């Protein structure tokens, strides 16, 4: 997958992954003490939506989203494999859903869907892994719909708003000649 990308694409995607990690390192510590499952995905979701949309606007290749989130995951793997698994599984799912619907990233709707879908999927995957790893008591707690639905809805909303802003920003940057596909 990575072989189809040019050196410039790979470098750009690596810098975007670094930007996503920097945002996570700045925002997640502020909310980590709030005992709401999924809050760590909710807080940085607009930024993830925005940056992923810009990355997909520049590199409109199947696999782009997966490469970015895998790089984020590989860095997190050094700390905890659970975070790596969450990133990679959610990235693969988002990529598969978008490619099943749109076949490529040539349309802006595909970019919007991919960038907006990723963070809500990380909420679902992390809750799923938490339920499997944490045992029956935690599984019962995590699978409570009154807990999941508001967090999932808020994450999806913020993520899609971020992705929409990313599309707008990408178009502005393209008009300015800064963003070249």
């Amino acid at each position, binding site marked *: 997958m990575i072989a189809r990308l040019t*050196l410039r694409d*790979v470098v750009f995607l690596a*810098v975007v992954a670094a930007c996503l990690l920097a945002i996570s390192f700045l925002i997640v510590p502020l909310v*980590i003490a709030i005992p709401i499952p999924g809050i760590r995905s909710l807080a940085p979701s607009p930024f993830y939506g925005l940056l992923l949309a810009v990355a997909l606007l520049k590199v409109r290749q199947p696999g782009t989203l997966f490469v970015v989130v895998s790089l984020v995951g590989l860095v997190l793997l050094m700390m*905890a494999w659970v975070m790596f698994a969450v990133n990679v599984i959610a990235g693969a799912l988002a990529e598969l859903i978008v490619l099943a619907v749109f076949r490529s990233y040539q349309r802006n709707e595909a970019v919007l869907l991919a960038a907006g879908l990723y963070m809500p999927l990380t909420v679902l995957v992390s809750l799923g892994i938490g339920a499997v790893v944490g045992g029956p008591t935690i599984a019962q707690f995590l699978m409570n719909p009154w807990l999941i639905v508001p967090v999932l809805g808020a994450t999806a909303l913020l993520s899609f708003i971020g992705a929409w*802003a990313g599309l707008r920003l990408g178009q502005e940057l393209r008009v300015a000649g800064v963003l070249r596909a």
Partner: protein
Amino acid sequence: MFQRLWLASVAQPLHPLLSVACAAVALTFGLLLRDATTLLTFVAGLGLIFMMVGYGVLLARIARIVIPLAALIGVLAALFGGGVSGGLMTFGRISLLGLTIAFAWTIDPTQLARALRQAGAPPLVALSLLITVRSIPTLVGEAVRIRDAMRVRGLSLRHTPLRILYRALVVPLLIRVLTLSENLALALETRAFTGDPRATIYRPVALHRRDYAILALMVILMSGVAGAQWLFN
């Protein structure tokens, strides 16, 4: 924060792939433990191993951040229906996560990229991982510089409307991301980097006696804890 933690780390870090493996195995093992006493014993043992291999200063700095956080979340977990045992388990798991993160702080990204190449990873994967890790402090620095530029113009992050923040913070940061990636790609191209898998490794990374020692200590600790859990439950 990254710089301070990195400087606080050790003169002789472990083999990077061994650090990643130790973090993964320790976290998995800790998550499998179902008893708070055993989990806390494991965490304490892991902390002791850290001190034995010369990671004491790093451990102290990470503990200063992680222990209060773990205690707070543990108390909340205990209050929200987990009881004392649930609170202690939460405290233990977050402390364990802090310790596994400590492994990551000791990894030199360049050594990691070399070790990955030695392990057979494609050069582009090793390179992109290296760029990702190396760019994080640069981008944080850029964000701080942009924030300072905003302050000079009388804008603060808290009291500025979102629409203006988007123009004053997000747009310049994104332009910096694009410029940085263009410059990096150009630098690689001018050095004839093609991602050829036959390229040799400048300085191969080898396992040292310290690496074998930490491996042995980890095996002894995990066997002891697993044995104790089996005996007492």
